[in-house]
């Protein structure tokens, strides 16, 4: 195995730039497809680093992680094996929107992922800063690095996160870098612009980190995890070797140091005070956000504390969660206190909070501003519309969040490798899962703020309960070879068992004289005496049976609704199709379509301001266009 430097005749199949959450998944997925992969990253010590909160999952995101697992990705296993506290969210609400979340050991998470990359066949890992693209005839076939090395690849996946032209802000102080203390990627932006790729700016921020032994936890509300953790990965379908993965490798250092699904730590709850708010109001003029030094739009769902205080002045207190960053460190993450106020103000703000009176900041809060490439410039496969063989995934596409990044990485990795191997592209549709919604929203609608998944974005979210991910993607996993044949067989059997039990419950009556199905729908399941053999089934199968019976009527409705829109939905609009001068199409609509360039008729129909009659017109011309193309080809 040698590093192939400057070998245009022997290109890699896929070159991935940046080993963040997107880059790791991209590289692993591509090599699993059989591609020969090179993963370049600026610093091997920051592989899969959680820039912000050391937690995986949460609402909308937890479901994505399970989907990643169902598609053969790594994030779920990595989170499970390095978790220090698990929590299932929304247990008091509907089952359809329950989501797993876990606090992870930040360093352990990185190390394990690094080790997975190291032992992955067909994957070469190398530390290098990418500073340019090698493009010929609008087709990307390699990258250059700051050391002057040239690497050639049939496809290139860019997963540089928050690093493009990045600057960090703490009050007046401004420095370059995608994270505090990290580098900034410089040459790349101008290369993108040169090839017609538009860039825009976003910002995000992170709270200060404190030293644990300077925090007074007495009197703060404790938050412990679930006794019976809900893990991200699906284990019932896995074989032992798949289950333990790198943990079986003797060289993996933390084997045995903590167990899968452990609940090692507690989190704590405190809140801001009147003094906090007063301090913030008095110093608002020093925040680069309010001074206008930061121009990029930030996420509304993740506002800085200054935003919260200003916009919700009627609230006299905001919650603050104290979360440990790991078991081998005493660094604590102060959730809810993201800010870019000057450091001295940060110190005063911290001291105004109960429990933090004497707390010491060991890493200041900051905001980061960076370039992103509006994702409407991408195909559904995440390949650029402008430069062939160039793929984009992760935060560079205007998203935010580890899970959103990883999901895109997975999709881009599979597609880049399939392109390199001359195979058809892989896609997931809106009615199949959150990842489908994510990709479709990004490529069809674009973003106006850093995009995060919300369950409300999925019109068929009842079909997307986290437990069904493996079943939902079984067919795809089959076609695209995403799992070992044994795992596929196991999922198939489980799906069958699930369906058999649903039938049994729909027909068989329990002691109380009504069918089990009827009972499940009317009383809490704990009060039902199921047949003994039901309890022998894997827990995941039991859950799925109950879920599908409880939601039976609704699921049928959703499936019918999804089917109805499916016909036109998947009709592809070739990128060469022009909306200009389509008779009858309103100018306003032409503009919108030109701007978004939807890749299917379904995407087109979801663009605001485009009505059914417009779709009819587009549909007709599309049909004519494809027929003419075909005739030309014949």
């Amino acid at each position, binding site marked *: 195995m040698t590093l192939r430097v400057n070998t245009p005749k022997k290109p890699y199949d896929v070159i991935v730039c940046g080993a963040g959450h997107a880059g790791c998944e991209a590289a692993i997925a591509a090599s699993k497809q059989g591609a020969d992969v090179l993963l370049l990253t600026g610093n091997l010590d920051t592989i899969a680093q959680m820039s912000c909160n050391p937690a995986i999952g949460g609402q909308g995101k937890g479901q994505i992680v399970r989907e990643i697992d169902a598609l053969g990705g790594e994030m779920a296993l990595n989170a499970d094996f390095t978790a220090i506290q698990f929590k299932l969210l929304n247990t008091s609400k509907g089952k359809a*929107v329950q989501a797993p979340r876990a606090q992870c050991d930040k360093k352990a998470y990185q190390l394990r992922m690094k080790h997975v990359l190291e032992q992955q066949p067909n994957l070469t890992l190398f530390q290098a800063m990418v500073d340019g693209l090698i493009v010929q005839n609008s087709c990307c076939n390699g990258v250059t690095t700051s050391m002057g090395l040239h690497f050639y690849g049939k496809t290139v996946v860019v997963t540089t996160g928050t690093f493009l032209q990045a600057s960090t802000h703490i009050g007046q102080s401004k420095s370059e870098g995608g994270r505090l203390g990290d580098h900034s990627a410089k040459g790349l932006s101008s290369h993108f612009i040169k090839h017609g790729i538009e860039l825009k700016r976003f910002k995000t921020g992170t709270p200060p980190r404190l030293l644990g032994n300077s925090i007074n936890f007495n009197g703060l509300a404790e938050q412990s995890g679930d006794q019976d953790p809900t893990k991200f990965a699906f284990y019932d379908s896995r074989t032992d070797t798949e289950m333990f993965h790198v943990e079986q490798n003797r060289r993996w250092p933390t084997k045995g140091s903590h167990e899968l699904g452990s609940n090692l730590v507690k989190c704590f709850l405190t809140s801001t005070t009147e003094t906090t708010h007063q301090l913030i109001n008095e110093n608002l003029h020093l925040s680069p956000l309010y001074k206008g030094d930061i121009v990029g739009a930030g996420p*509304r769902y993740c506002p800085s504390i200054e935003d919260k205080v200003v916009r919700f002045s009627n609230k006299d207190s905001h919650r603050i969660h104290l979360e440990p960053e790991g078991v081998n460190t005493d660094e604590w993450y102060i959730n809810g206190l993201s800010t870019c106020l000057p450091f001295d103000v940060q110190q005063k703000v911290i001291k105004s909070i109960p429990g933090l009176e004497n707390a010491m900041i060991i890493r200041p809060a900051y905001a980061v501003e960076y370039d992103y490439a509006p994702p409407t410039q991408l195909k559904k496969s995440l390949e650029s519309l402008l430069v062939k063989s160039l793929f984009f995934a992760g935060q560079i596409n205007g998203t935010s969040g580890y899970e959103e990044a990883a999901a895109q990485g997975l999709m881009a990795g599979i597609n880049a490798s399939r392109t390199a191997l001359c195979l058809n592209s892989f896609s997931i549709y809106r009615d199949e899962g959150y990842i489908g919604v994510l990709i479709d929203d990004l490529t069809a609608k674009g973003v106006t703020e850093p995009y995060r998944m919300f*369950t409300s974005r999925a019109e068929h979210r009842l079909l997307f309960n986290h437990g069904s991910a493996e079943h939902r993607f079984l067919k795809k996993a089959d076609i695209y070879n995403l799992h070992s044949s044994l795992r596929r067989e196991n999922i198939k059997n489980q799906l069958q068992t699930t369906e058999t039990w649903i039938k049994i419950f729909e027909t068989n009556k329990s002691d109380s004289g009504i069918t089990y199905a009827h009972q499940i729908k009317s009383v809490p399941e704990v009060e039902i005496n199921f047949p003994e053999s039901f309890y022998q089934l894997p827990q995941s199968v039991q859950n799925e049976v109950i879920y599908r019976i409880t939601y039976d009527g609704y699921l049928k409705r959703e499936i019918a609704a999804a089917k109805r829109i499916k016909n036109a939905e998947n009709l592809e609009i070739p990128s060469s199709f022009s909306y200009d001068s389509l008779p*009858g199409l309103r100018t306003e609509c032409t503009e919108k379509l030109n701007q978004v360039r939807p890749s299917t008729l379904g995407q087109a129909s979801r663009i605001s301001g485009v009505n059914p009659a417009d779709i009819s017109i587009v549909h007709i011309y599309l049909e004519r266009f494809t027929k003419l193309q075909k005739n030309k080809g014949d």
Partner: protein
Amino acid sequence: MIDTIIALATPAGESALAVIRVSGQLSNIIAKKACNCTKPKPRNAYLVNYRSADGETLDQVVITFFNKGNSYTGEVSLEISCHGNPLITEMICKDLINRGCRIAHPGEFTRQAFLNGKIDLPQAESVAQIIAAKNEQALTLAQRNLKGKLSDKLLSIQQDILNLQASIEAHIDFPEDDLHENDQERVHQKVRKIVQELEALLLQSTRTKLLTRNIRVVLTGLPNVGKSSLFNALAGKNRALIHSESGTTRDYLEFDIKIGKFWITLVDTAGVHNASEEIELAGIEMSLEQANEADLFLWVIDNSVPHPTELPEKFTKLLQSKPTLLIRNKSDLGKNNWAPNYNPSPKAINISSTGKYGLRELETLLLEIIQKLTGEGSENEYLVGVRHEVLIKNCLDKLNRFLTESNNEVGDEIISMHLTEARKELDIMIGRKTNEDMLDILFGEFCIGK
């Protein structure tokens, strides 16, 4: 599974025949269930009774069935020719909707025809233009129909639902934020309020009013001009007292008659004049009260004598406020042909109630006026009307379903689903709201961000 769509193929209104086209899978079932015609031979005409899902015979119709590939659209189709009366076509359309069809979007039939290769490629351009034109027309009609109060009301209801959703979604998607408890009773209360508003809206709409209850036709005029005589003549029965002395009718009298397909309540009232006698005065007040309820006035005058120009002001004002038909009665005795000097002058007709002439013409004229009143203009106007009514009703159904189905056992995501379904019905009328709109409210209203 493609929707079965319906549309009127002939312009509605005064035509003798109307053709309703049904395109899609349900065509077979409709032929069988509504027309009692199992396995009709394609392209053969059958004379059958059209029965609604409630079992009522709506009309005698001629149906023609078309196989897939051999119809206008290329889908399985059914053409129903019924009588040209708009009320009949409307009832049939409503029944078809009840049976699962939906009204076609502008140009949808032509589009299907094109996509199924029934119209060839070079024609695509003209097809698109037709769709664009029809869309334009439908939009302006929709706007016209919706202008003012109705659309304002619908917009505010749409907003109310969206607000409600924002608060529910905030709780679903941000479980770790400290939001106030989302209590179901409050949601129910709000939904109940929205239901009430929609119900009121449905009642208020003149169209619906005219279609769900009889049309009130009030006879009015000076004493002794022959109002009661005309009332009896139209009723075909001697219900009202007739006398050569004026002031015979003191109370009001009602009688239901049917003209065409419309049920009409005829109301005979006391003659109006600058009265002196107290009991008569009371009667006049009463007839003015009746006048307020009227959909249409028949203003009866005595054509054989010159018209006394002085009329109570209250009275003329009333006449101008509603559709009025001027009846010059006693034309057998003379023809002064007086008309009031205000603009526009009401339509007038010469008749004789006792000589029984002009009565046929009067009925025809009445039917025409009533058809206009019920809004039966062009095809599109008519469809827009039905469509809105159906959509408001659908929205109500879904909200009611929400109220009955949701209790403490039901998750927030189900509650939200019901609300989305209800809101979508309004979206069709007044423009789509997206999840982004909901998120805008959510982030504006709730302090999110752990």
